[in-house]
């Protein structure tokens, strides 16, 4: 069930240029949360900005009853959030969404994150490793300073590779190059999970279709309610009609029908 609660800000750290990691005391949410879910946050204490902002749950610490968010301060909402003080009560709703679906029979997991898209993937990595999967992580960023979480993934026991657009660190190029490379080398995952810019996701879906690997992507869309009521946050999804003989299109809600969708269901071109 989605809760609307006030939770304490336990710590806040600028982990990269304009990128913040905030730890929240939220036992009720930590208890239920799945990797890939998000929380819907009232960034300020008054009604300006008006709407909440969705941020993925970055890490889930069920034992301590804590959750983490990792975000980039891009506009009014996230900038105000980055200024909230330790000890403040934060008004959040969550956990929201379907989360990633790790199949029990999968043995090898490939996780691909672009930019701030890495945010929801740490919890996924942790859970995958907890379930005994072999996990590889590919991280893409514009440049060296914007790479987030490389160490955190390594500590969990995942093999991590990095690509930067400008070549300022490790592979120069796109993170999708790394994905193609690993497939070429013969490391075939049972599932690919990805989060990041649309162009990256689209390419990853193409690669996964070619390689016949099951792929799940986490989408973003502008949200109002965050709980499925306003139909503001839709994306176009291919569905089959009842007789399964005709492809249909439907606008599904990113907030509660997603944010994770099967890569092949997503219609990218409008």
């Amino acid at each position, binding site marked *: 069930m989605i809760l609307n609660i006030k939770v304490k800000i336990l710590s806040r750290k600028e982990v990269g240029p304009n990128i913040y990691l905030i730890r929240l005391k939220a036992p009720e949410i930590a208890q239920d949360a799945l990797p890939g879910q998000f929380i819907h946050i009232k960034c300020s204490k008054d009604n300006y900005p*008006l709407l909440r902002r969705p941020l993925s749950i970055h890490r889930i610490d069920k034992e301590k009853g804590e959750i983490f968010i990792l975000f980039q301060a891009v506009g009014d909402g996230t900038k105000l959030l980055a200024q909230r003080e330790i000890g403040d009560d934060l008004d959040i709703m969550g956990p929201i969404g379907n989360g990633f679906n790790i199949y029990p029979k999968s043995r090898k997991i490939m996780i691909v994150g672009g930019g701030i898209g890495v945010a929801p993937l740490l919890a996924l990595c942790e859970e995958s490793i907890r379930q005994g999967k072999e996990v590889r992580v590919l991280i893409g960023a514009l440049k060296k300073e914007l790479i987030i979480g490389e160490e955190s993934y390594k500590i969990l026991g995942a093999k991590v590779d990095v690509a930067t657009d400008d070549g300022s660190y490790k592979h120069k190029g796109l993170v999708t190059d790394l994905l193609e490379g690993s497939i070429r080398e013969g490391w075939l995952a049972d599932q690919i999970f990805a989060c990041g810019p649309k162009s990256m996701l689209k390419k990853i879906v193409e690669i996964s279709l070619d390689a016949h690997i099951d792929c799940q992507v986490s989408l973003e869309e502008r949200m109002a309610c965050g709980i499925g009521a306003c*139909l503001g946050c*839709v994306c176009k999804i291919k569905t089959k009609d009842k007789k399964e003989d005709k492809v249909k299109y439907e606008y599904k809600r990113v907030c509660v029908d997603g944010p994770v969708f099967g890569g092949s269901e997503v219609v990218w071109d409008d």
Partner: protein
Amino acid sequence: MIDKPCLKVEIAGIKLKNPVMTASGTFGYGQEYAPFVDLNRLGAMILKGITLKPKMGNPPPRVIETPSGMLNAISLQNVGVEILIKEKLPYLKKFNTPVVINISGDTLEEYVELARRLGEVSKEMGVTGLEVNISCPNVKKGRMVWGTDAKATYKIVSSIRKATTLPLIAKLTPNVTDIKTIAQAAEEAGADALSLINTLVGMAVDVNSRRPKLANVSGGLSGPAIKPVALWMVWQVFQTVNIPVIGIGGIIKVEDALEFIIAGARAIEIGTANFVNPRVTIEIIEEIEKYLIENNIKDINELVGSIKI
């Protein structure tokens, strides 16, 4: 001092526990808010606008924040009336809160058929009333919006009136020169109550891509930004008609609700604020009660239209 003021109001023959209703399109089909709100405590629930057939709606982006408001261009994505009846209304039957269905259509015939169909199942499925969204364009008349013309308003409301005995609320659009003549037309056509305002038409542009921020170009402006406009229109209409008026537009705290009531609204609908604070309806109900106690008002109906000019 009174300790339990009366919050009951009657709108279009519908008895409400209190004057706080949910605005169409902002409360889903009710169930979405059940984790946050005891649906039994609401004055009434108005559901997402329904059409005869399911509608796919506009492509994204569909919502965008603006200063103290938001633009939406959902364009009536909905499951269609039959799925509403089969899959959504049964859940709501277990609450003793009136359910009002907001209806929309592309043609007069669609509105009429919808009203007839909902009248037909009203007893069984617990449909207490209809709110007619006349802010939709009339596709037969070159997409002129029904509610922007007094004659068209009269025509559509009277046609629906003939098709159903259900309490009928006409929901007015604010995008008009003179809201009073539209209100009068709706009253004469047989509406039992009027609700206003629907959203103002607005737009936003992304200066980097130089594209509209909404895929649909324009959208409906809602939220606190529009409250002063809504309040003015409610007061204008309250002075013009003899049927109850429901105030809508930017209500996010108890003072907002009270402003509408004092200006003549017998009930109010809360829309965008649900997105900000999912418990806002209940909080406002509680605070209206507190205000009545503090001001020694026994019955909320005394407050309606009590503005001193």
